[in-house]
């Protein structure tokens, strides 16, 4: 049987017949690949690149021997429970890039899987610095942050696009309990068993993602809410929130991530549809939608009117998240050795002609959504992710008090901050332009980065840093003092007496201010 799962590697388990020649059996080795084509290709040019293009499925063999051909889908190469693919240890900076650009960076030439057809239409750009995580986690996070879905092709490439683009959303198949009808559009498939159970344990009305610290907030979050449809014992709307700890997710992507998790946090429906279909892969891939018409079990939706076998039925639309299909005698089976040699092993496979196709519909009881890779690398190195997820430096434009840089010349007003453990560290520079300038005449100062307020620990004003002013050609160090929750004041030093004294800035202190003059400053202060 071959098990394919949406956005996961799935698995396969085939058998060789007992009297298979030894020279074939010995070729079934770990890291060889099994390629299954929709028909036995006889006399075709079986070049190593040709076979996968005809293929229905490709998997990597991990458990050979004793007549078994068993392993997982090719996504396994990028990471699994036990390895991290080509692990990303040093940071890889992706800043405002498209998904195709991000994947070209994360899956360069020589990778086990390469980007295939990537459609950026409708996707968000990605700002993300993967570090200390598996190649697979980095790729999947980038795709999730873009708001896309993905699929691994038998040609060892990854396609990604909006789910509505990548997968079939108008069903081509309708599953009923009536005899199959392949002449109909959509094609009618007879289901022998439909088993449905529901699981409400994963249900959430709101998802809050606790994102990367240092992005301008003490505890940056992104959230998405659904509409509660259930009531608690007192008749009020049930509030079932889910908190996701995601220290590697930038704040800008937190809302997108929250939406992806919310989409999965539904009442789960495990529906197993067992049906007869000679080549389900021709009509259906994981992620596609199908129609199911079983009114007795609630699979009915009057919004969908479908003509089927002469009458109008009203099936519901469900998403297929898993497909298990038997290895039947109509397919072709090829072994691709680790060196790239293609061997036709169709005659030696033990066929499963009497087995049914099984579809998993809806979200499933334990979906990958439960283990979304947002906490860092696979393999539980979450603490490492936290260490690296400390704040990068960010720039901002401070509000200015008592001065304005105007425009023209070298007019400039930018600052950089780093926030960690409750302390804000800022470095900034102000340069006055040539028109529309307000030169300092009295109290001057700068404001905090967005989302922060200065919170010096005592009620009295406190010194916070130093500055360096160029006023009228005079280069003069000064002090920076936190004076209120939103003002960091810049003061000059007065050298007139025996001891240095702080002095208010004026139009002539510390020099005669003119266009083109500058102030550089830095300060460190607790914030809230």
């Amino acid at each position: 049987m071959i098990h394919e799962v949406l956005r996961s590697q799935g698995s396969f388990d085939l058998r060789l017949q007992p009297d298979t020649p030894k020279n074939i059996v010995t070729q079934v080795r770990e890291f060889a690949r099994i390629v299954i084509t929709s028909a036995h290709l006889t006399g075709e040019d079986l070049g190593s690149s040709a076979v996968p293009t005809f293929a229905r499925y490709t998997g990597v063999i991990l458990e050979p021997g004793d007549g078994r051909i068993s392993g997982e889908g090719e996504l396994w190469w990028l990471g699994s429970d036990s390895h991290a693919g080509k692990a990303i240890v040093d940071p890889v900076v992706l800043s405002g890039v498209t998904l195709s650009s991000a994947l070209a960076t994360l899956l360069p030439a020589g990778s086990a899987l390469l980007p295939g057809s990537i459609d950026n239409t409708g996707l968000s750009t990605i700002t993300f610095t993967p570090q200390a995580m598996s190649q697979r986690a980095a790729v999947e996070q980038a795709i999730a942050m873009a708001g896309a879905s993905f699929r691994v092709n038998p040609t060892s490439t990854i396609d990604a696009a909006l789910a509505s683009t990548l997968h079939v959303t108008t069903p081509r198949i309708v599953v009923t309990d009536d005899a199959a009808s392949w002449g109909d559009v959509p094609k009618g498939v007879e289901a022998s068993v439909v088993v449905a159970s529901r699981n409400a344990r994963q249900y959430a009305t709101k998802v809050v993602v606790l994102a990367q610290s240092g992005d301008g907030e003490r505890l940056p979050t992104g959230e998405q809410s659904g509409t509660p449809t259930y009531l608690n014992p007192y008749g009020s709307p049930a509030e079932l929130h889910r908190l996701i700890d995601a220290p590697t997710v930038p704040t800008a992507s937190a809302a997108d991530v929250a939406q992806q998790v919310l989409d999965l946090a539904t009442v789960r429906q495990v529906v197993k549809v067992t049906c007869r279909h000679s080549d389900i892969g021709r009509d259906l891939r994981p992620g596609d939608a199908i129609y199911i018409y079983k009114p007795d079990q609630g699979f009915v939706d009057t919004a969908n009117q479908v003509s089927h076998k002469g009458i109008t039925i009203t099936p519901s639309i469900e998403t297929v998240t898993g497909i298990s299909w038997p290895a039947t005698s109509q397919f072709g089976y090829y072994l691709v050795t680790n060196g790239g040699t293609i061997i036709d092993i169709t005659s030696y496979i033990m066929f499963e002609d009497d087995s049914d196709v099984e579809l998993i519909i809806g979200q499933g009881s334990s979906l990958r959504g439960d283990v979304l890779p947002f906490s860092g690398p696979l393999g539980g190195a979450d603490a490492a992710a936290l260490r690296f997820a400390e704040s990068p430096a960010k720039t901002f434009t401070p509000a200015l008090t008592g001065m304005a840089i105007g425009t023209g010349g070298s007019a400039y007003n930018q600052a950089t901050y780093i926030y960690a453990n409750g302390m804000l560290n800022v470095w900034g520079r102000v340069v006055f332009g040539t028109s529309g300038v307000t030169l300092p005449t009295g109290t001057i100062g700068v404001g905090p980065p967005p989302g922060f307020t200065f919170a010096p620990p005592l009620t009295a004003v406190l010194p916070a840093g130093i500055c360096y002013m160029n006023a009228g050609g005079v280069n003069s160090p000064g002090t920076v003092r936190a004076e209120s929750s939103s003002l960091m004041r810049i003061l000059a030093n007065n050298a007139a007496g025996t001891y240095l004294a702080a002095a208010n800035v004026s139009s002539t202190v510390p020099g005669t201010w003119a266009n083109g003059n500058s102030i550089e400053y830095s300060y460190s202060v607790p914030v809230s």
Partner: protein
Amino acid sequence: MANALFTIGRATGLRAQRLNYDGDSLSIVGHVLPSSDSAQAVLATRQQLRGLLDNPDEQVFPVTCSVDPTIDGYYRVRGASVDDTSVMLGSKGRFGVQLERLGTGYTNVVQECAGVALDRTNTLGIGAGIEGIWSIPSAALTDVLSDNADPVTRTTDTGAVIGRFFNQTIGNTALSFVCPPADHYDGSARIESKLGGSTYYEMVGRQVPLTPTNWRLTNGLLRIQNSATSGMLCDLYAYNGSSWSTTPFAIRFTARQDAVVDPGDKAFSNVAVLAVTVLRNSPEVCTVRLLVNFQTITGTNAARYANITQQVDISLRRGDCIATVNILPGVGWFSATLGDNAAAASTGLTGSIRNDTAVNGNRFVTGGTSGGGSTSLWTQTTSRSSARGLNFIGVEILGSSATGRNTAQEITNQWFTPFVERQRVVLA
């Protein structure tokens, strides 16, 4: 048991020779007494008995006995066997059935029609609020109330049916009733075959021998069968309560591809029916699939389409005066026209058109979910990628004398609000 005649399902004229009771199990062995000595009558009875087994549409059958009322009831068929035809032709054919009685209330077994009430999606402004119709034999007993409208009694050639109306808000539901076994097939939809002879016989199950010149779909109010006029899809007859019409409406089906660069404009007409298949054969609805071919194709690249089959499904419900005609993409048509070949003057209604002049006292009605029509022909147009026609053909029985829920507009409304149902027996 002298002169005891049985009916089992649709098979009649079964004379029991030996009965064996074992609790709820009943075995009957006997002879077949067909309605006539013709080979077809015998073949029909054989088909009706064989169809009791492996029947996807009916799992429970009514059984009646002419002399012993304790046998009447509903039974599951565990086994059915018939002798070779040549032996049966001499009226000495033997049959054997093994039956298992259902339920605990004698003949008061509860049946339900489980289904979904719809408003058909359409572009003609027919919306919610119209009531749909559900018909069961008038001898049946039910607790289902007719919403906002009096029930309508329609007389079919196998007994009367009562149609009750329901608001579409009933959605996904089951309507229950109890029916005496002798009346189970009153007014039912059925599929008939002449089996090579000249008389139509009722068929059971889906393994029914139908040929392009030998098929009939009927519910006792309408008859749809192969057309006597060449180039037509089918003929439509109606029953006015006491007799069948003698002149049918010949149903014309044509199609067009217009304003298309590749493969070019084309007109398709002159239909030949190539094959007929049973999709469903149950008392509440029967459906046949016609594979047809257009004999006259004019236009660009006409030769490419010469042997392409076009699929048309026709479905008829118990108690309805309309039949659904579902036209599948097939030749890739852009517009499809369906209607009365006589192309007589007609009046436009909402969702349909109706002939002005009656034939045998009845007026033809046709319509669809989109498009429009005149002179008794209805045309639907669609885009190439979604070419699919959902139409109906029907008869306003008694024409201008039709009253209440039998008028042309009313039966049009009934088509636009179907109840897609499956009838089955449930335990009492």
